[in-house]
């Protein structure tokens, strides 16, 4: 199952489903008034809502006093003493508590009514205040990060049981991203738990490092930067590594998976050009390797009998959420976590590798804490021979929540992790849920029968690992290369091919300049209600496959025209007016030569093998951007095909 099972599933994360109160009287009033100041009302409101500074000072003073008192009263013997004492921080201000209550009331995965929040930290970033709140929910420790002025927002919520926290000196609970203000500021960062032994948490970003103080056994590190626009956004500055500074003076690395990428070993960027590669399979310490008691006919009786376990599924907001669902229920596997799992079955529909899917599908959808809409969802084959566990969809985050359905006969489920951890899963009505630190993967989900025998094993994928970029390989010496063809003669100064501009040209114009391509490949279709359907082609010169082509020209629709936006070269004979056979240089040499020859027109935006332009991507590539105009040049190599380094000329944003 994929992270987004459907278009609707993906669109679901784009818009927050939140309670909106109709206010018809305001509309009538506004409609009756012709002239009104544009900004004044909001400014007035904002001033009215802003908490008095005096209160903030008092809060800080109280927090400091409580921290000191807690440290004195409980010492460092208990690792989470502020929480174990039962009252970390101070009671949440009433507006914050009421906001939470309002959200909780309408949530599909609510905490028990009467849950009392405690304010653990309040931090102001780029003029916006954030509250880190904490509370116990049964056996679980829960954190909630929310904007102070929007206490009923969904925010970020994370609940972990004691056995999920065990074995860690500090744990990143979540990475967050808020968008505030106008011009918009993106505020991103992390928050989490830290044991009494941790004095502060060091957070290393792609650019810069900061220290987050540990208060009430939690930490919070946020940083803001202008959002920019889609076409011109500033370089992302993701968190890349986290370390705990211990009270004894030692520094302990906290394994952290860069969002969308892998883990930097030891929390440090490699000193040589490197990339994130798939991790080779490895054994999980202490984990079973063999199923000793297979289940012959895996099934879930209560679903097949349509028993009304759990609670009814909320009405599907989107028709493709649970297509043609025959039966569905909502199950809460862990009484200490509001997370609910929707389980449904119905006839399969759709296509897999061009063939229609037949049979029965089981669909699982996760409703996260305080959501008022759906969560990650996916449908797949129902349990059957050899498939006693159906794993639901999940989304990678510092704490990844796995869920799934297990066959009758499986009475216990546990996750085994590569760091040696074993985390028991919550299990109810054949539905399990378990939260594990993403950095601790790979792992296994293991199902046991009532006799404690292994009935099922499901592998959990490993994180990417850092590998040095291989050197480019040049089997044919330059002296034996054929003379450059028409489309292999470029000038990086003017970004022309044989003296002609290609970027911005239509397919016909490109053909007129470079001749008929070896292959025209349809890549996408664009519909315009006025002008009909446009087919967007890809032109390939010098070869027809991705490994043999010499030049690939990508097009995109700009206004009413389809024009060339990217030129991808990997022809060994490619020559530049100043650099000569530039794809016969090692990428680091090419970077230096380009900077030397074209440095007045271009600036290096990411050095070879260290790119952070795409969040989380460490790849064997680099980029230069034009100092004037929206043009860019990428270069590098595919580590799996080091004999064909590439160079891309593109319109920035393409």
């Amino acid at each position, binding site marked *: 199952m994929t992270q987004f099972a459907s*278009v609707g599933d993906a669109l679901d994360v784009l818009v927050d489903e*939140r309670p*909106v109160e109709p206010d018809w009287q*305001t509309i009538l009033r506004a409609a009756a008034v012709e002239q009104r100041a544009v900004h004044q*009302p*909001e400014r007035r409101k904002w001033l009215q809502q802003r908490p008095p500074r005096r209160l903030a000072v008092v809060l800080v003073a109280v927090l400091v006093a409580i921290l000191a008192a807690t440290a004195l009263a409980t010492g460092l013997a208990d690792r989470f003493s502020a929480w174990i004492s039962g009252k970390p921080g101070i009671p949440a201000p009433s507006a914050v508590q009421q906001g939470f209550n309002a959200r909780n009331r309408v949530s599909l995965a609510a905490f028990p009514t009467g849950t009392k929040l405690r304010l653990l930290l309040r931090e102001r970033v780029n003029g916006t205040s954030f509250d880190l709140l904490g509370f116990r929910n049964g056996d679980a420790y829960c954190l909630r990060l929310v904007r102070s002025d929007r206490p*009923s927002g969904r925010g970020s919520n994370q609940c972990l049981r004691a056995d999920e926290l065990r074995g860690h000196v500090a744990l990143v609970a979540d990475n967050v991203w808020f968008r505030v203000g106008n011009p*918009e500021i993106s505020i991103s960062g992390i928050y989490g738990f830290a044991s009494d032994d941790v004095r502060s948490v060091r957070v290393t970003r792609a650019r810069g490092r900061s220290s987050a103080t540990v208060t009430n056994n939690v930490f919070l590190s946020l940083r803001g930067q202008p959002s920019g626009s889609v076409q011109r956004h500033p370089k992302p500055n993701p968190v890349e590594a986290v370390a705990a500074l211990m009270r004894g003076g030692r520094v302990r690395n906290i394994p952290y998976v860069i969002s969308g990428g892998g883990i930097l070993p030891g929390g440090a960027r490699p000193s040589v050009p490197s990339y994130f590669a798939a991790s080779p399979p490895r054994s999980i310490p202490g984990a079973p390797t063999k199923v000793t008691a297979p289940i012959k006919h895996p099934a879930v009786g209560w679903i097949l009998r349509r028993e009304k376990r759990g609670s009814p599924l909320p009405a599907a907001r989107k028709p493709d959420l649970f297509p043609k669902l025959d039966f569905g229920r909502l199950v809460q596997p862990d009484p200490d976590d509001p997370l609910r799992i929707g389980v449904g079955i119905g006839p399969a529909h759709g296509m897999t590798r061009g063939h229609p899917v037949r049979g029965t599908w089981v669909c699982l959808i996760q409703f996260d804490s305080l959501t008022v809409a759906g969560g990650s969802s996916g449908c797949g084959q129902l349990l059957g021979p050899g498939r006693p566990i159906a794993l639901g969809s999940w989304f990678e985050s510092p704490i990844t929540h796995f869920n799934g359905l297990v066959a009758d006969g499986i009475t216990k489920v546990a996750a085994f992790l590569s760091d040696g951890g074993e985390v028991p899963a919550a299990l109810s009505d054949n539905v399990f849920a378990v939260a594990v630190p993403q950095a601790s993967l790979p792992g296994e989900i293991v199902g046991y029968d009532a006799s404690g025998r292994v009935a099922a094993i499901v592998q959990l994928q490993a994180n990417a690992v850092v590998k040095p970029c291989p050197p480019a390989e040049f089997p044919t010496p330059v002296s034996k290369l054929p003379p450059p063809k028409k489309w292999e003669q470029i000038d990086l100064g003017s970004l022309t091919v044989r003296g002609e501009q290609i970027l911005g040209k239509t397919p016909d114009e490109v053909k007129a300049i470079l001749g008929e391509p070896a292959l025209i490949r349809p890549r996408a279709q664009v519909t315009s*209600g006025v002008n009909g359907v446009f087919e967007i082609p890809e032109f390939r010169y010098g070869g027809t496959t991705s490994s043999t082509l010499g030049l690939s020209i990508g097009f995109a629709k700009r206004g009413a025209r389809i024009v060339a936006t990217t030129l991808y070269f990997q022809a060994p004979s490619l020559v530049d007016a100043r650099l000569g056979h530039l794809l016969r240089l090692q990428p680091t040499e090419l970077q230096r030569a380009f900077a030397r020859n074209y440095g007045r027109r271009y600036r290096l935006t990411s050095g070879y093998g260290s790119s952070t332009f795409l*969040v989380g991507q460490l790849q064997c590539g680099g980029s230069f951007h034009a100092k004037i105009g929206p043009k860019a040049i990428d270069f590098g190599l595919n580590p799996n095909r080091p004999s064909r380094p590439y160079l891309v000329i593109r319109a920035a944003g393409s």
Partner: protein
Amino acid sequence: MAGSRRGATLDELRAIYEGRLAELTRVASAIVGDATSAEDVVQEAFVRAVRQRASYDGRGSLNGWVWRIVVNVARDARTRGPQQIEVDRPDLPAADEDPRRAVVREAVEQLPERQRLVLFLRYYADLDYAAIAAAVAISEGTVAATLHNAHQRLRLLLAAIPR
């Protein structure tokens, strides 16, 4: 609702406003990219609808007429920035800070505007083809084709964007 009469009544507009506020806000939020501004967009759209209610000519559904105003106001807001919209709002809850949003937004932003609008109206408002056609001022056939292409393109884009 269709007919030969002219003008909409306040009660009719109020019924649409109160009955479909959630969907209207969702769609506006998707268009402008900001939940708080979306509430202002809907409010602004209804202010316009109230002021211009006499101009509703009864040729299409009143729902479609209102949706068109909301879509137009949201498109304007997206172009000129959210703070230019008249603001008079109560304390409202925050936007969802789901980190996957960046990935989806990046993909959605690459869709042509019409595909985006049709997709939003279909998914966030659950409108049928006829209602979408009325809101975007295109034919039902074009709605179907646009939706199909939007689906295909978005799937491709989501698969292509690194997470």
